[in-house]
């Protein structure tokens, strides 16, 4: 009773500020990544600024999260008020009118401060449909000490031949050091994110202009051969079940010589509290094919969006505005150190000298994000957009199925030719089921 009274009083005092406020509970669905977990630890600040809003968290592993929020929004279930979704979903969902456009986020919000390539992926018809919480591209992280020991120096733009050579020389299986760690766990956002980027750098593409799958092309063959060669000979055991998190743990415990993955990993591998190799990490652009200049950089952002069906849109907006604001960045800097702020979203962060000094990976991250070309990812002409994915609703299914096939090849149950043939067959099948070319 008394809490209700207090709520009522609180509401009265806020009416003066023009806010339609009563104690509201919003449910936020999020992924169990480090940056999101950090946010949950900083909720005191939000509660202080918005005493009238209670936040309930649903924290799930990426794949489970995606399944849960997609089921919910597609069936109009209305269980969540704020969703954590990727830049793959945003344009597709916005086109279905499932998301609330994020306008009037407050005077201090400064949406123009968002990095242009990131904001572009979240904007449909000039309206922003999700606010980026952090964004990433891909890059090469390597152990400077091991590379030195191998007698090599990292070129400015390493190519896959160099990577192979370095992986071979760094590998010392007796000491549990594996030259290279790459994603192997099946999933369109797991191994296929990496493999699609790598394929782009090799000049391959998913579909030709008539939406015909291209796994029978020599470029894909080169991609898969190189990948399998690297991973079978110089990769860690069990690679076919390694995703981002598994590789991060391997790299942090000093078991990887090189790792090509999301730029966001940099703040974890360089954090001496979490990483045993923090002092010996170097960064380079993700590799190109010999003589080529396409790095195949991917572009991924985790974003906060509000379902159009939410009953508590104002409270949800207040939360999204808080979590993706410049003040939030300052808050994380204060509590966790400036190197650990969520990267990749705001220009102002990369103009902050303090950040550039504290985060040795900042320049590489910014360069990678700005170099990501999601409009024409491959050297060849393609009918789709997207860096490490193909921006059509069917891609999740196809990407994951192809991911399973490639993961099986990595586990050794089939060879590269069989895997490519299987990928070609199943993609053709799914595309014809979906009615392409449209």
């Amino acid at each position, binding site marked *: 009773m008394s809490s209700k009274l207090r709520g009522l009083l609180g509401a009265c005092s806020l009416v003066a500020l023009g806010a339609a406020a009563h104690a509201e509970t919003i449910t936020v669905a999020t992924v*169990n*990544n480090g940056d999101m977990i950090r946010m949950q630890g900083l909720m005191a600040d939000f509660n202080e600024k918005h005493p009238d809003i209670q936040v309930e968290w649903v924290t799930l592993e990426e794949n489970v999260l995606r399944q849960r929020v997609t089921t919910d929004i597609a069936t109009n*279930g209305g269980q969540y008020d704020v969703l954590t979704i990727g830049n793959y979903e945003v344009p597709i969902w916005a086109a279905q009118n499932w998301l609330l456009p994020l306008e009037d986020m407050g005077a201090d919000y400064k949406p123009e401060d968002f990095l242009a390539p990131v904001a572009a992926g979240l904007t449909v018809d000039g309206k922003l449909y999700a606010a980026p919480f952090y964004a990433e591209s891909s890059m090469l992280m390597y152990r400077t000490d091991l590379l030195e020991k191998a007698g090599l120096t990292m070129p400015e733009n390493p190519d896959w031949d160099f990577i192979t050579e370095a992986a071979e020389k760094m590998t010392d299986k007796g000491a549990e050091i594996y030259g290279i760690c790459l994603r192997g766990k099946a999933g369109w956002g797991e191994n296929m994110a990496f493999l699609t980027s790598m394929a782009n750098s090799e000049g391959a593409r998913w579909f030709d202009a008539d939406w015909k799958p291209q796994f029978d092309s020599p470029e894909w063959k080169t991609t898969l051969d190189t990948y399998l060669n690297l991973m079978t000979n110089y990769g860690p055991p069990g690679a076919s079940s390694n995703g981002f998190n598994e590789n*991060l*743990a391997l790299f942090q415990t000093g078991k990887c010589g090189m790792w090509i993955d999301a730029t966001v990993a940099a703040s974890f591998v360089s954090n001496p509290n979490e990483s045993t190799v923090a002092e010996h990490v170097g960064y380079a652009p993700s590799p190109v094919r010999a003589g080529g200049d396409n790095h195949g950089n991917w572009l991924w952002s985790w974003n906060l969006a509000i379902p159009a069906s939410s009953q508590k849109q104002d409270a949800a907006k207040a939360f999204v505005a808080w979590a993706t604001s410049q003040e939030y960045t300052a808050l994380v800097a204060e509590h966790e150190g400036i190197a650990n702020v969520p990267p990749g979203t705001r220009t102002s962060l990369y103009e902050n000298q303090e950040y550039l000094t504290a985060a040795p990976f900042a320049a590489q991250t910014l360069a990678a994000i700005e170099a990501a070309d999601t409009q024409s990812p491959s050297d060849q002409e393609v009918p789709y957009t997207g860096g490490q994915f193909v921006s059509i609703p069917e891609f999740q299914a196809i990407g994951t199925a192809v991911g399973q096939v490639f993961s099986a090849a990595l586990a050794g149950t089939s060879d590269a030719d069989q895997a490519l043939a299987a990928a070609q067959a199943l993609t053709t099948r799914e595309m014809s089921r979906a009615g392409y070319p449209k």
Partner: protein
Amino acid sequence: MARTVTTQRKVIVTAIAWTIAIAIFFPILWTFLTSFKTEADAIATPPKFLFFNWTTENYTTVQGRSNYFLHFWNSVIISVGSTVAALIIAIPAAWSMAFVPGKRTKDILMWMLSTKMMPAVGVLVPIYLLFRDTGLLDTRTGLVIVLTLMNLPIVVWMLYTYFKEIPGEILEAARMDGANLTREIIYVLTPMAVPGIASTLLLNIILAWNEAFWTLNLTASKSAPLTQFIASYSSPEGLFYAKLSAASMMAIAPIIVLGWFSQKQLVRGLTFGAVK
């Protein structure tokens, strides 16, 4: 047994049995130990068994991340609620199957069991839509309903096999004394059936506690039980073995303790009339 057992034989049997028992129990023990290690100790090579710096910091971290007690309480309500509801529906059904069997009784029983074989994933979308329309999404009521129906066949069957063991003559005697049906059930049958009901109750609480498909898919935050709590640890970033272990222990400890304390009752009912 009347045969004399030599001490030597007993010692050997003891040694073998203990070795096997500890091997079977080891994963739980190891999780327990790991939950008190630092993350670095958790993956140390060679593994540290007892001599490490015991710390409870993982438990604090886990509690800081998610409200354990809310999930715990939800688990209790959902598992106990669905079990009690199932018992209320199943007791009369099992009673009539056992004491007034018709020609179709066996068929009905078999049909009931066969509904349990329906793969839940196949009907998730219909159930989700029904729940959305009835406002049952993310409510404990909704989960109690689903889990009641999920476990009803097993409950009916367990009770049936148990009731069948009760000799019919006792009922005849009660009837001679003029007891009507209600009195017959309350005063004669129920006391005899209490052990069977107790073990059915226990087994179903365990099954409902551990159910991980519906509980994960039909809840968000308010009604989410411990299965959801553990799902957020399934592959977090960086080193997480110790935190995973702490969360695991928090999720399974209540039910293991309950199981241990009640294992005598549990075992008695678990036999499903299989033991004559």
